[in-house]
């Protein structure tokens, strides 16, 4: 692959002026000319729906695509905790600068300062926009907006709507989109899955889409394509993501030349309900707030078969309190997660499958009384009981970490454009803003920042010079070839007639990923995964069984394509994790830890974005580096002792 120079287009000058100056310097498309431009938005989650609505409102001709039956089903709907914004409504010393600083530090100094500062700046506009739209955020008795502190933040900057913040924000963005659909500025294609990006003469020309109801494969051309297709946590099979989340749109763009940045950066959430059997289909997140009043422990003796209440205090190991006396059960997500893995790997896991640790409320029940605990956590206790059949008032909860969010994604510059001219990426699908670790309540903020406030303005810079140019027609050979490739691929899956289901292979891939590229990674383990994934992938291609046809709804066929891409992505993740000889944020290499077992960064050698190119010949990626510099936030080491 020819050498690619990664120009972040990051503006220079004082950080607080960069976005304003940049907006002034980008080219504009005059209002009367906007309708002459066609823009395709793939994905109608928070990022995609907000962008499509805004672009439509500005007057562009927008086509939006989602594989869901309606935009309101996107995975964004499931976000619980809240959305950050530097409003400082509580007068507790928050500011744009503090949110910027916390985000760069939380990301373990692996994000671009310019992007993060802009994110913190527009965070305040997001809240204004959402409230005006009717998002029913929680309020105080005086009628003003309530805030809470979230994920260990020192200030209260998180806006929330009960435990359903994502739902309310998505319904807001969806309502704005629905209005544009009604006006005719946005043409919405539901149950339509993008299966290829078409690039002609180095520029984005459009996409190829399969209608999931009829199986029809069609081409759509546009001046620009925006991918807002979410994260790839489901490469692990079990995660807190919705079942249909996948990497296909981003991966197919990657195969057409878009670089994939920091694929190994993913976030594990410490408090999820452990799986109960091999047919477990997904993991349910229990809010992190539970750690405020629950104590985490395992029995000292791995062979202890007694119930939790039968095990005396002296025979319990409250391992977080023991190892981190000052933070105790409130250590950050990654530290809590890794320690849970250590005790479970040591055979001390609890529950029927010995795959969890206790989160025990008994001392809080004694200290605070049942009523207070009930008021704080009632809905969570109820949800837990619904799933496990156990009452947390009587027996401790069983929890275990699970894959939750992926910081890596398509490489984009400051304008959110990938390295393919005219192809953009937003939301969880891109790699920007969170570095090696995302702060709680910041993903919703980023999705809406990108969609409402960033992309609709930066896209003009690319479009303006193309005034009066027609998009490449869809009968161009490049479109026809891409359509044929999609049909061929589906015919191939249907033709294998092997022994095992798609889910079977997905589950096995997930196990490899979780064991060797999960919470803790080692050189030996990653090498093992790099050997096992291709072997399993070969089996998949030889032995997958997909029944039915490709002219009607065929959910196994849809999944076959997605799992195929997960195999390739999984391989790249391991490669990235192996090459990054340091520990940072969600990436923990056992070889690189301090004497206390904390993550040890190597700023001298790894202070860069690792952006991988797709290499058709050997499937190994080619690495390109975008160096990171820190003018404002000086890197330091974390400690929670």
């Amino acid at each position, binding site marked *: 692959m020819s050498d690619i120079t990664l120009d972040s287009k990051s503006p220079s000058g004082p950080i607080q002026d960069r976005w304003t100056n940049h907006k002034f310097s980008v080219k504009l498309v005059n209002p009367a000319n906007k309708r002459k431009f066609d823009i395709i938005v793939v994905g109608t989650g928070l990022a995609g729906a907000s962008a499509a609505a805004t672009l439509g409102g500005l007057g562009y001709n927008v086509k939006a695509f989602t594989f*869901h039956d309606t935009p*309101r089903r996107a995975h964004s709907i499931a976000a619980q905790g809240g959305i950050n914004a530097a409003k400082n409504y509580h007068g507790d010393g928050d500011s744009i600068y503090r949110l910027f600083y916390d985000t760069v530090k939380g990301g373990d100094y692996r994000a671009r300062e310019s992007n993060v500062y802009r994110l913190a700046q527009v965070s305040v506009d997001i809240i204004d926009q959402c*409230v005006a739209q009717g998002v*029913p955020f*929680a309020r105080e008795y005086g009628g003003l907006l309530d805030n809470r502190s979230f994920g260990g933040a020192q200030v209260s900057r998180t806006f929330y709507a009960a435990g359903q913040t994502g739902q309310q924000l998505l319904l807001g963005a969806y309502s704005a989109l629905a*209005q544009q659909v009604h006006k005719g500025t946005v043409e919405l294609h539901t149950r339509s899955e993008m299966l290829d990006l078409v690039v002609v003469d180095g520029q984005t020309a459009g996409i190829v889409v399969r209608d999931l109801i009829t199986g029809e494969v069609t081409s759509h051309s546009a001046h620009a394509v925006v991918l807002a297709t979410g994260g790839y946590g489901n490469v692990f099979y079990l995660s807190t993501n919705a079942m249909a989340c996948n990497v296909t749109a981003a991966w197919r763009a990657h195969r057409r030349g878009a670089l994939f940045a920091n694929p190994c950066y993913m976030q594990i959430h410490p408090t999820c309900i452990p799986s109960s059997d091999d047919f477990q289909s997904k993991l349910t997140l229990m809010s992190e707030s539970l750690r405020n009043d629950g104590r985490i422990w395992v029995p000292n003796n791995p062979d202890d078969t007694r119930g939790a209440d039968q095990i005396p205090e002296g025979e319990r190991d409250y391992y977080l309190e023991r190892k981190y006396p000052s933070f105790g059960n409130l250590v950050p997500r990654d530290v809590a997660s890794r320690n849970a893995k250590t005790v479970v790997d040591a055979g001390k896991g609890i529950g029927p499958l010995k795959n969890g640790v206790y989160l025990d409320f008994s001392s809080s029940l004694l200290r605070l009384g049942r009523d207070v605990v009930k008021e704080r956590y009632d809905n969570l206790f109820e949800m837990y009981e619904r*799933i496990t059949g156990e009452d947390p008032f009587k027996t401790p909860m069983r929890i275990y970490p699970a894959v939750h969010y992926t910081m890596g994604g398509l490489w984009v510059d400051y304008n959110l454009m990938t390295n393919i001219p005219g192809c953009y990426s937003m939301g969880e699908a891109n790699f920007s803003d969170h570095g090696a670790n995302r702060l709680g309540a910041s993903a919703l903020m980023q999705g809406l920042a990108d969609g409402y406030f960033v992309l609709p303005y930066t896209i003009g810079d690319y479009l303006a010079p193309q005034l009066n140019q027609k998009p490449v027609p869809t009968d161009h050979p490049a479109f026809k070839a891409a359509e044929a490739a999609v049909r061929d691929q589906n015919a191939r899956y249907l033709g294998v007639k092997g022994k095992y289901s798609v889910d079977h292979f997905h589950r096995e891939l997930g*196990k490899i990923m979780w064991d060797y590229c999960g919470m803790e990674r080692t050189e030996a383990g990653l090498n093992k995964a790099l050997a096992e994934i291709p072997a*399993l992938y070969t*089996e998949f291609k030889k032995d997958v069984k997909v029944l039915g046809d490709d002219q009607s709804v065929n959910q196994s066929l849809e999944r076959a394509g997605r799992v195929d891409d997960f195999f390739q992505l999984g391989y790249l993740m391991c490669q990235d994790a192996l090459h990054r000889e340091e520990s940072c944020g969600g990436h923990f290499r056992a070889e690189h830890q301090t004497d206390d077992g904390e993550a040890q960064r190597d700023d001298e050698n790894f202070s860069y974005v690792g952006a991988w190119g797709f290499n058709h010949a050997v499937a190994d990626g080619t690495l390109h580096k975008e160096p990171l510099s820190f003018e404002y936030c000086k890197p330091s080491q974390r400690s929670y002792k």
Partner: protein
Amino acid sequence: MTATMNRPLGEPGASRPKPVHVSKTINLTLKVWRQKGPKDTGRFETYKAEGISEDMSFLEMLDVINERLLAENKEPITFDHDCREGICGSCSLMINGIPHGPETATATCQLHMRKFHDGQEVVVEPFRATSFPIVKDLMVDRSAFDRIVEAGGYITVFPGSAPDANLIPVPKPVADAAFIAAACIGCGACVAACPNGAANLFTAAKIGHMNLLPQGQAERYARTEAMVDTMEKFFGSCTNHGECQEACPKEISIDYIALMNKDYLRSKLKNRRYLSRKP
């Protein structure tokens, strides 16, 4: 990518804890609606669901059945689902004649098999309503809901033009009531439960959310008229059976329907008066 397999399929990985306990299982007889497409007449097929763990969710049970069907070279059952946490509104299903099954305030994806007993017969059908045509097996087309929202389920505001969020205080009880309505997941159980196939609970929830808030006042009557009229184009009429609120996984009350009806009557007056003033 070349390498040999060094681990047989299905064997747990190195650090995977080994099971020491098997959860309690039950045996069921399933009667599942199978229909190849919109034009097919469809029929029930009977499947033995044996050795079903009580810890499974209803949809995980269907996953298991699908794996078994596949092994017998039979096409898996098609059904909609995604979040499996009761929030996206994708899942549906009539389970023994009840939308989302027997458990109150629970979407199908959150229903667990411990709520069924050994030897039970379970009938699984799609949501049945004229306005929700069957796509395949248990999957239906609920897009008529989107038409209702498109007609007026929004508050017009362009990004960048909104005033500071704390400029308009909203009394907490009002904010809470709006939130309760806004919690609707758009699943369509209310329509499936209604003998007339009416969508009044869904529409009322949407309207209630926005009409209660101060931000929603400017478009209140235009919104109500447009949404109700669109609803009537697609769905049956409400005759106050109240089955909808029983079926609603989010327990949305029919009081919101009363609120909608009141606003609809007023909208007829207000909108007409407004129109008559136009030149």
